[in-house]
């Protein structure tokens, strides 16, 4: 065989290798937004970049934003926020939109011009007359709800990919730069003497409860920090994987989920482990508590219902698709935005059943 043909063979084999293996290395920016459930409507960012308003009872699509068939936002990751009939949603292009909740028509956008800020991954949070959000340009911004005028901004040491959490007059923000901040809601000034520094990136929104701030980090440690002072109360370091999702609490325990699929129940005061459950597959989806049960999912597409008390599996439901969006529950129904463009409403309290299932894809 001539060297030229051998070389050609090698080049073709390499291209094949690149094609077969390489395609898995590049992930498209499509988003995994958690749904927001109001009285009659489910608001949801689809993986095609549309903000949808669905009938909460039937899943039927009412309106979408942008309305044009070929128009779309780029990657909606954050759960939207709703206040005063206005829906707030950010996208990966670095725009925050204020939409009329009824018709999903645009009221204003930030920035108002063509300028772009860093990518918005975490959802916005509404507190008083402000809408607060973080972005990848290492900033937390507070805008006036009615017109989008900037009220204050705070520079962090890393990208902010989570929704700020507001408790009373304090805004708690986590950053991928290893820090968690407590800021004044009024002016964005730091409230702790210094931000809390974790050993790794903090990607999810913290949970604030029982006078503590709970969050997990990429250093594979789960932290409890005093909400008033920013001092560490306890830490849980048994995990062997990152923490990507916001934990939940029932007041007695806090339940973090690690990316290797391990679910932990930790004593809220001491951090002592009460039980752990292995989902058997990686996950970044945040769990939700429904009554005495915890609902959690993994990349395998199984929805697990666990006893919050014992960690025993009560039941499971197969949605047959990876789920990365946080699970959202209301009135005993869990809403699941799966990665295969399908949205499920599952009743998990009492008799377990599928309420509805729809496709958000315009191609189906």
């Amino acid at each position, binding site marked *: 065989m001539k060297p030229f043909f051998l070389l050609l063979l090698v080049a073709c084999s390499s291209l094949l290798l690149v094609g077969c293996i*390489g395609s898995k290395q590049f992930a*498209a920016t499509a988003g995994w937004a958690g749904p927001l459930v109001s009285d009659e409507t489910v608001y949801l960012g689809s993986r095609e970049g549309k903000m949808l308003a669905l009938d909460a009872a039937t899943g039927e699509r009412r309106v979408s934003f942008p309305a044009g068939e070929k128009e779309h936002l780029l990657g909606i990751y954050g759960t939207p926020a709703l206040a005063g009939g206005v829906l707030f949603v950010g996208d990966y292009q670095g725009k925050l939109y204020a939409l009329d909740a009824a018709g999903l028509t645009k009221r204003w956008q930030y920035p108002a011009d063509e300028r772009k800020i860093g990518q918005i991954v975490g959802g916005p949070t509404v507190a008083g007359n402000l809408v607060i959000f973080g972005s990848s340009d290492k900033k937390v911004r507070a805008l006036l709800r009615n017109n989008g005028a900037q009220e204050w901004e705070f520079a962090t040491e890393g990208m902010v990919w989570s929704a700020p959490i507001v408790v009373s007059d304090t805004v708690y923000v986590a950053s991928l730069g290893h820090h968690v901040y407590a800021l004044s809601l009024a002016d964005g000034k730091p409230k702790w003497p210094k931000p809390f520094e974790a*050993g790794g990136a903090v990607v999810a929104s913290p949970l604030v409860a029982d006078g503590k701030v709970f969050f997990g980090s990429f250093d594979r440690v789960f932290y409890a920090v005093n909400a008033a002072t920013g001092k560490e109360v306890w830490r849980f370091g048994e995990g062997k994987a990152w923490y990507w999702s916001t934990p939940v609490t029932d007041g007695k325990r806090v339940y973090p989920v690690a990316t290797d699929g391990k679910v932990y129940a930790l004593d809220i005061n001491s951090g002592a482990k009460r039980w752990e459950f292995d989902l058997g597959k990686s996950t970044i989806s945040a769990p939700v508590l429904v009554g005495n049960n915890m609902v959690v999912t993994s990349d395998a597409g199984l929805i697990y219902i666990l006893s919050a008390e014992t960690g025993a599996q009560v039941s499971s439901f197969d949605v047959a698709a990876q789920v990365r969006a946080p699970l959202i529950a209301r009135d005993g129904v869990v809403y699941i935005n799966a990665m295969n463009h399908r949205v499920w409403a599952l009743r998990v309290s009492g008799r377990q059943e599928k309420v509805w299932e729809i496709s958000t894809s315009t191609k189906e």
Partner: protein
Amino acid sequence: MELISLLWNGLVFDPMLNGLVLLYAVTGRNFGITIILFTILIRLVTLPLALRQIRSTKKMSEVQPKIQALQKRYAKDKARLSQETMRLYKEMGVNPIGCLGPMVIQFPIWIGLYYAIVKVLPTNPESLASLSSHLYSWIPVVHEVVPLNSRFLGLDLSTAGVPPLNYVVAFLVGGSMWVMQKMSTPLSADPRQRSTNQMMLWMMPFMFGFFTITLPSGLPLYWFVSNLIGIVIQYFVTGWAGLIPSRTKPAPVAAGVDAGQSSPDSIQDEETVNDGKQSRDERQERRGSHRARPKGARRRTRGSRHRGG
């Protein structure tokens, strides 16, 4: 496909990715420096292969005049041509695909490095989320430093550069690749070969220059450093070679008489003398076949020898 993916990740991709992140953690947490150091490290590890490839290519180019002479001589006898060519390769200690072996081994390394760089600088949450499963759980520090700081000399290594900086980087990548290719491409008197070489010489730098403008800047940095190292290695093995034409002459098509080398006839004689292990019968057989050649062919050969002189 699942098995290939497992093998690929376990043997090539994951070790490289963790190596990159570890290097980042222990060398000041600057990913530009990490890429430079890692490229040097990989180039050092693969140096024996690279040297073998360069030497093999050099030997192949040295033996070309004799091959061309054989081609002329046995133009009508393909089987004999093949036999004589293989014998020549053997006697000269040349492996005709010797330059491809090292290349084949290096390919997975380069592809793995390419993807490791892309993967550790996630451009969106999807890629960062999928990074977690590739990091070794027994090296805590690789988890602590993610996501990596991608700023280096005004470039964001995780995204495509912005004008005019990306054009400067594209020029550096394309230029260094051109120099490396120019040094490593043997000069040839064969017009077809020369034309192919010429096309490759310009096509590759242009292609990579274009990639530079569109791909995350971490990759062009890797290409640039890799090219510079390649130039240094090439210089130590072959000198400036094809880069300064006045120092080298194209290999003559007809039997290398210019270079004081033997004609097809004397090739055979020389081979016979050199090959002490050959039996008397073999030598006789070869002489016999020599004599049995058509007269015209012999004349043509001599004619070409004359022209070559």
